[in-house]
């Protein structure tokens, strides 16, 4: 068993690799390509912030100007737990740093300790990127910085072609004339670091262990790990509430439907669930929201969100205090969850209860049930202890398909009820071509789906002693 699980876990890696590669290259080939982020909400561009220059810089920062295969390589390197050192994060030996500092100390900018620090970082970044010795690069910088306005060719070291360098030259000349060499050098270093931000190379030395990193969202600049950590719990909460509910209702009604096939309960529940199943979630969500949350019709539940206004200041439990009844955080959230959970569950009843009914029927017509009945086993015991246990396999199969689809597929419900869960994260990322978030959600979604698969196979073996993987 253990070796089987291990084998399956190892197989996860190439499968995920394939999935991510397909998604990455398809996204890159889609119109708009990777990372053509929205500059501003609402379709309006902003005056005073040069959108084009900004986009070029953002592209360099997130390596979107590299060829697609190279970007995929970077991404793999980023998420891999084993990796190489990256030139922009290289830990330089003390001797190299001292050498750079010695060369730069002679420059007028060295009067300002912060500027000297920035200059040293710029030189080391360039040395790492080009692979030249730091002292040599420092010399190059020192020579070029004698006339900062003429020093723009230094950007060639980082293979950066700035848009409209004339503006920068003009500005540096003005600073040279008005404020002297020191300030102009400081300015140039800031410009250099800004333009070459994100440029780095992988140093192919000995690989080491590192923390896997899901990257950064282009739109908000926040780590993807944090975004997933904020969204996933909300999706899991919705699942934890709706899955047991689906199963409870479907199992009970399925079992009782199987007891008298063709009976009143069987026909009625079947028709009712089928009717529910044929209502699209979008329609149901909008109808529920319109009729059950609006003062115009009936205001029973909160309109949207997971918490009401002022929930963060509430006590946890409901209480009767000075101002009458306070619903408290828990009850407030429960009220908010009723409609979304309803929308997530009602369609699941139909399929599951039918499947339950089918496998129960099969079990009930088998020999051992007849024997048990003849032996005089009580009816509830017969149903639940004997027949039910033998018909759970299809339920397990369904579960492994339901979980992943509920986590990513709750987009509509999340959008209607303003719950920022995984589905919304994925769709927003795809819409904005935010590569790291798209890839992370594929990775998380794929991982959950495949773990569910493994879990299902293991559960088979537990539920049915006939299944064995030895």
């Amino acid at each position, binding site marked *: 068993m253990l070796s089987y699980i291990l084998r399956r876990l190892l197989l996860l890696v190439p499968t995920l690799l394939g999935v991510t590669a397909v998604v990455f290259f398809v996204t890159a080939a889609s*119109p*708009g*390509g990777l990372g*053509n*982020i*929205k*500059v*501003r*909400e609402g*379709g*309006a*561009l*902003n*005056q*005073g*912030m*040069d*959108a*084009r*220059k*900004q*986009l070029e810089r*953002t592209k360099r920062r997130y390596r979107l100007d590299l060829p697609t295969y190279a970007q995929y390589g970077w991404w793999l390197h980023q998420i891999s737990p084993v990796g190489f050192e990256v030139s922009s994060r290289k830990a330089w030996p003390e001797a190299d740093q001292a050498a750079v500092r010695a060369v730069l100390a002679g420059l007028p900018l060295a009067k300002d300790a912060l500027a000297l620090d920035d200059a040293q*970082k710029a030189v080391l970044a360039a040395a790492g990127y080009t692979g030249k010795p730091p002292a040599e690069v420092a010399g190059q910088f020192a020579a070029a910085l004698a006339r900062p306005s003429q020093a723009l060719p230094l950007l060639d070291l980082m293979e950066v072609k700035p848009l*409209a360098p*004339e*503006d920068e030259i*003009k*500005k540096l000349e003005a*600073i040279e004339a*008005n*404020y002297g060499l020191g*300030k102009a050098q400081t*300015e140039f270093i*800031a410009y250099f*670091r*800004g333009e070459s*931000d994100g440029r780095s190379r992988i140093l192919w030395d000995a690989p080491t262990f590192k923390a896997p990193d899901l990257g950064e969202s282009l*739109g*908000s*600049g926040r*780590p993807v790990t*944090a975004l997933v950590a*904020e969204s996933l719990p909300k999706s899991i909460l919705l699942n934890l509430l709706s899955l047991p509910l689906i199963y409870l209702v479907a199992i009970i009604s399925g079992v009782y439907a199987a007891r008298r096939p063709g009976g009143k309960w069987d026909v009625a529940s079947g028709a009712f669930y089928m009717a529910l199943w044929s209502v699209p979630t979008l329609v149901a969500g909008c109808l529920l*929201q*319109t009729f059950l*949350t*609006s*003062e115009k019709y009936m205001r029973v539940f909160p*309109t*949207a969100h997971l918490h009401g*206004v*002022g929930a*963060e*200041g509430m006590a*946890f439990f409901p209480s009767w205090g000075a101002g009458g009844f306070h619903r408290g955080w828990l009850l407030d959230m429960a009220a908010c969850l009723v409609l979304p959970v309803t929308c997530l569950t009602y369609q699941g009843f139909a399929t599951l209860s039918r499947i339950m009914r089918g496998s129960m029927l099969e079990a009930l017509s088998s020999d051992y049930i007849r024997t048990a009945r003849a032996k005089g086993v009580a009816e509830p015991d017969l149903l639940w202890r004997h027949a039910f246990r033998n018909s759970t396999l299809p339920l397990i199969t369904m579960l492994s398909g339901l979980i992943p689809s509920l986590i990513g597929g709750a987009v509509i419900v999340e*959008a*209607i009820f*303003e719950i*920022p869960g995984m589905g919304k994260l994925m769709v927003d990322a795809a819409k904005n071509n935010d590569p790291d978030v798209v890839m992370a959600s594929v990775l998380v979604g794929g991982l959950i789906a495949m773990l569910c698969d493994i879990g299902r196979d293991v559960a088979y073996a537990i539920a049915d002693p006939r299944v064995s993987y030895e």
Partner: protein
Amino acid sequence: MENRFGFKDFFLTGLMISLIVLIVLAMVQFDRQWEQVHAIREEQKSQGETLVELRRQLQALSARPLAAAADPAQPAGASGKAGGILAEAPASGFDPFHALRGIYKQPDFAFGGQYTGGLPVQLKKLTPIVPSDGYQRLVEGMVLEPLLQRNADTLAWEPYIAEKWEVSKDGLTITFELRKGVTFSDGHPLTAEDVAYTFAKIRDPETDCPDYKALFDKIVAVDAKGPYRVVFRFSEPYFKSLEAAGGMGILAKHWYSKFPTAEFNRTPGLLFGSGPMRMASDPAAWKPGNGVTLERNPWYWGPKAPLDNVVLREYQNATAREVDFRNGIIDFFGVPPEKFPEIKAEVEATAKGADPKGLGKRVELRRYTSLDDGYAFIGWNEQWGGKPSPFADKRVRQAMTMLLDRERARREIFNGVGQVATGPFEVASPQCDKTLKPWPFDPPRALALLKEAGWEDRDGNGILEDKSGREFRFRLSYPGANEGVVRQMQFFRDGLRRSGILMDADPLDFPVLLGKINSRDFQAVSLAWGGSVETDPRQIFHSVSIKGGDNNVGYSNPKLDALIDQARVEMDADKRNAMWKECHRILAEDQPYTFLFTREAIVLVNKRFRGVTDPKVGYYNYPYFYLPQTPAGAR
């Protein structure tokens, strides 16, 4: 397999029950602590306010001998009533809070209450400087304060945190004298160090703020000379330098230096300043997805804000936002143009008494133009695939403008919201030449111009051709997400077809469209630019911006270039505005864009609020709304 409830089962059940009871008890205990913490916080707030008041009185005491000597008529002693000394204007000097003091004097004025707003987006970040969506500014404006602010009526700069300022003759240096006694929302004083720190943070290459770096590009150094004097040095004279230096919200050095740059870039909620409101909970612990709650800053250095709390909730689902507005959960609703007639009819029905329980009973319909609303336009690309396009000819562009019935589109598609634009400047801005009229809708004159430019119907099929027989056909790209824009483009397409021009509508996803614009891979494009009180047209219309900037249509006019270059360095506002008006005329004549519409905001505000004044720039000043003492009308 006989099942009996044995000792083991009994033990386990008991254990489970006692565990659950214990957990519940722990939660009850936690609730009690929670209440205690609340009480302590409330007490702390009132102590903060008392301290600020004491500090004020001390300052007034130390200033009195001087004031008394200068003005013997000045009465001594201050009343201890609500607001006390805070409610009174300073004896001398400019008072940045004159508007608020007017509100204080209203007979029904009262402190307290909460405003709840609904945002159409999810706030992704509140940390200032680092990029986020526009609504971050709305929150920021209540928490951070700049050195100067614009007068609400004249739009001239007025002292705020800075008491006075001086711009050197060459425009390269600006010196600010800061007001004494300004504090951040933890009681820490705001000094010149904080101002210098704010700009150092922006200039730090590791801070992730590409757009702010571009805005403050010309600042060479910001030096604190003493605790209350800051000197800004600029690389070149520029007319927006004062705005750049004086309009930036000041960050607290003692608070922000707790966070290393990498953490500053990544943490979403780091919003802390000297404004009338502050975050109600620890800013470092704020997470996106639940909106934001602000509370009155108990340490505020000016007169305190009327409202206790400002809560902003997020509604990306427009239906949910409207339902919650109708339920009275949120107090504010921005009406999209397509819903305007319906809502207007509903509000007016109540006014006439037809529907006494309707929307109009509770809300007030307001429409206003803000100076940063910007304008929508169609840009005519003068280069198609590196070769001059038909739009390279000024006459063709003028004709295109005259073929588009913008007034009718405004009336019938946008329900009369907004105005037909004449140029890139806001109508209320001093840069705008208000005498200019928009080009008329005049197809005969347009066809005559086109004929002059070589486009006429040569083979009688109803479509214009040039000399070589090529049909006049172009593709207009636009964001396809907005229904109004889509309908407008269909309307324009039909209008052009009637005059013999074939327009292919090309609705695109915004990121795709942006990519096409940046690679100049479009024939004509419809978009919108955001605006501000004073804008710099260089980024969009100067010929240097064809290669490096946002002059996407490849428009170039040497006369305009020279004028822009000249106006940007002119520090005298009157001379400069005369030049901008000339630019406006040139752009209206050349029509590099067909300027479509200026925007207009239509909002519904809950009637229970008083002191609501439409903003000239930006957003409403929510903390300065107030709830009257005896609530009139429905609450």
